[in-house]
């Protein structure tokens, strides 16, 4: 897997490089700001970019804007955004339009190195990795309240776990229920939201989240 890292803290940039290299991935570029990120990604076409939200010059939302740009111009490049805080507004911007190969995680999640590397790999493969907090914020702020309020707590839980990019089997394992039960929850969610079920896990979750964020 070919990875580009955009992170202005040298400490974290080196740490991420070491971690991903140790797991057998190739760091093809490591940059410190959003402008270089877009340039390098356009030139090298990596499988995935790991992007910090706050970067020079203004240290606000450069990473999100660069990620949105890349998702429009380089659809085959996966983008995993790391942030100190997860914000529903940023998630909505990220999920708008193209719905594959996207991730948005709290920076803390890199501490669980196994899961983090799995998330990077998933996004590189066109999957998703959304922080559970993103989902709870999207549900909390959705303009489609009457719909959201129809979801049971269990269904919300299932939705959150799927948004992290888990398969039905993995969701079933996490909740200690059967695969069939998960499938039933999923079809209930789609039914309540009035969305047509589709066959790919990440696509249907993103459809739900994009719908909630709109």
């Amino acid at each position, binding site marked *: 897997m070919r990875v580009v890292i955009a992170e202005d*803290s040298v*400490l974290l940039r080196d740490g991420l490089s070491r971690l991903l290299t*140790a797991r057998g991935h190739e760091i093809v570029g490591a940059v410190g700001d959003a402008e270089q990120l877009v340039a390098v990604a356009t030139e090298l076409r990596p499988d995935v970019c790991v992007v910090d939200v706050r970067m020079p010059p203004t240290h606000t939302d450069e990473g999100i804007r660069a990620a949105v740009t890349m998702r429009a111009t380089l659809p085959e490049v996966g983008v995993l955004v790391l942030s100190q805080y997860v914000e529903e*507004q940023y998630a909505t911007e990220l999920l708008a339009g193209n719905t594959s190969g996207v991730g948005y995680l709290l920076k803390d999640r*890199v501490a669980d*190195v196994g899961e983090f590397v799995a998330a990077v790999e998933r996004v590189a493969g066109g999957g998703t990795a959304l922080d559970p907090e993103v989902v709870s914020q999207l549900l909390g702020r959705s303009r489609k309240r009457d719909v959201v309020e129809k979801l049971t707590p269990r269904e919300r839980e299932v939705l959150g776990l799927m948004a992290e990019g888990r398969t039905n089997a993995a969701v079933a394992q996490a909740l200690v229920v059967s695969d069939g039960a998960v499938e039933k929850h999923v079809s209930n969610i789609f039914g309540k939201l009035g969305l047509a079920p589709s066959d790919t896990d990440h696509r249907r979750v993103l459809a739900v989240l994009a719908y909630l964020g709109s």
Partner: protein
Amino acid sequence: MSMPSPVTAYDGSTGDAPVRTRPGILRAPFTVRTWTDTIHLVLNLPVGIVGFTYAVVFIALGIGLTPLFLIGLPLIALTLLGSRAFGRMERARASALLDEHVRAPAPLQRRPGWTGWIRSGLTDRTGWRACLYLFLQLPWGVFTFVVTTVSWAASLSAITYPLTQPLYRRADMPGAMISGDGPNEPGVDHYLAGPGLVSLTVAAGVVLLFATPWLVRGMANVDRVMVRGLLGPAFLSEQVRDLTVSRGAAVDTAASDLRRIERDLHDGAQARLVALAMDLGMAKENLNASQDTETARMVSSAHDEVKLALQELRDLARGIHPAVLTDRGLDAALSSIAARCTVPVRVEVDLPERPPAPIESVAYFCASELLTNVSKHARATHAWVTVGHENGRMYLIVADDGAGGAATGKGSGLAGLTERVRGVDGTLNVDSPEGGPTRITVWLPL
């Protein structure tokens, strides 16, 4: 006419403090007060000439240059600043000669930057008042100089007339001429001569001698009023305005300090902790593979600790000033605090445009604290955050269906919150009867 009385009299029966009385009319010409007042009134003329020239020349130059080059505006601002310096000298003169001790006005509140400096200079009322003082000082100085010198000179020359009258004889005149064309021209001339007229002249001189001190005192009192009114501290309304400006600056500074602290935390401690957590995570996985159980347990618990520390630090930094508030405004920033609340929260924000940064910051802080209270104390099942605007002000309502009983007095966080809201001229109203529901309304200026 009253008898002369001492400047200071004691109340004989008691040992009370000395009672100051007016100097008797007969002593008046010989008191120090009269003479310091006189010196002050005479000095008014040279001071008036210098001050008036300064003010008129530079203000006129400033106004004249403004349409052509904007350099006129800083020139006027500088002139007003100079007027303040003149005012300082004039207060010192009044203090030394008039015994009128006027407090110095508040120093100029400078706004940051060049344009801010010019703006604060141009709107400096103290400077304008001092400038007005300088304008008035010339006509007033001419008047006081003439009246004072003529009064004293006339009274002294009239009293000493019997001594000076013989000098007129050398010019073939019986005395000072009142009317006519002089001894060398034909016609009838009238002179101050003869015992009757000379006595009358002396008497008039004496009357004038004792009247002049009162005239001097009257004019000096006008000077006192001018110094107090034009060079003294601002009126109460202006003081309030100045305080509002300086408090606004303090609030702005506090808000930008908070943003800076949050940034420093993000770039420093948080980044290091994330790197540490990542290293510990890698160590943990490697140890699990090598089956060294004791060490693995220690590393694993260190790993958990550092993750907890990260979370606490994140919550702390978030409470200080979230970056998303700066980037995307209140609506976006409220999402995450609503999501973290333990009860479901409905958030509705309707604002025509973004409020000023300090107001936004206070509103966010209020919502954050109030929702924390809901999580901790309210025993609620639902909460609502509503933000809107009315008549140029914004409101933030945080309501819940919990147990109620919240009050600002109980040493609760509400008291601190009220202070914070009042710091920006807002109000916080608590409606929380025992048994609920609770509704807290915050009004903030836009």
